[in-house]
């Protein structure tokens, strides 16, 4: 399934809902959107991965890039993920310690700051 991205302003944060597959082919589209958000001044970003069907190392690299940009502008960058297969990928790569991961969007919005 192709990557689909929907952006929504929630309170003073930006919610990016991602669905489909994040891989070596589609990850540049995600990177482009994250850079656009940063360039447009979005500082506090919540990325919802609940509808993501596949995530590879290129996608992880893009998410780390988003986190670095947010930190550079003193913003926040948190992930919503409750899928065991995705959580396993974050655990295997050690990135569960790098990202703030929340099980729901509600939790992320209340805990992002």
């Amino acid at each position: 399934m192709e990557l689909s991205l929907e952006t929504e302003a929630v309170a003073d944060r930006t919610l990016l809902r991602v669905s489909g597959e994040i891989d070596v082919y589609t990850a540049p589209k995600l990177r482009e959107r994250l850079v656009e958000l940063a360039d447009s001044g979005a500082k506090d970003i919540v990325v919802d991965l609940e509808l993501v069907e596949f995530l590879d190392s290129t996608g992880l690299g893009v998410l780390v890039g988003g986190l670095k940009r947010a930190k550079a502008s003193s913003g926040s960058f948190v992930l919503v993920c409750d899928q065991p297969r995705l959580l396993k990928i974050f655990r295997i790569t050690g990135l569960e310690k790098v990202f703030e991961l929340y099980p729901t969007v509600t939790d992320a919005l209340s805990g992002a700051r």
Partner: protein
Amino acid sequence: MPTVRLRFSPSPAHVRTARLVAVACGRRAGVAVERLEELKLAVGEACARAVARHRRSGLSDLVLLELADDAGFEVRVFDYAPAEPQGSVDPEETVAAEAGIALLAESADVLKVIPGPGGLGSQVSLWWPTRSR
């Protein structure tokens, strides 16, 4: 003798195709259903690595994916790029490369990375048990 042999141009668009073919063959070969997600992930990582190596070298040669089910299920991915300096200056690429290795190592029962003859190219070999073993 591989059961299936797939050659594809070094484009990221074809990595998904390679993943799907590998999962279909692995399922048919008898890889446990609960391991197919690992197989899909590992084959994607190995093929993405090969594609990236060709692209960094400006090499348009086809990447080769071989799938063999004669003793367990073996996946072999061949690239033909010359040896390159270690490391990347792009932090996203560095994270992706390190994560890719971790995912490869964790997903298959056996992982081998074999340099090609004369330092040209490399082979990533992955193996999973099947029900028939």
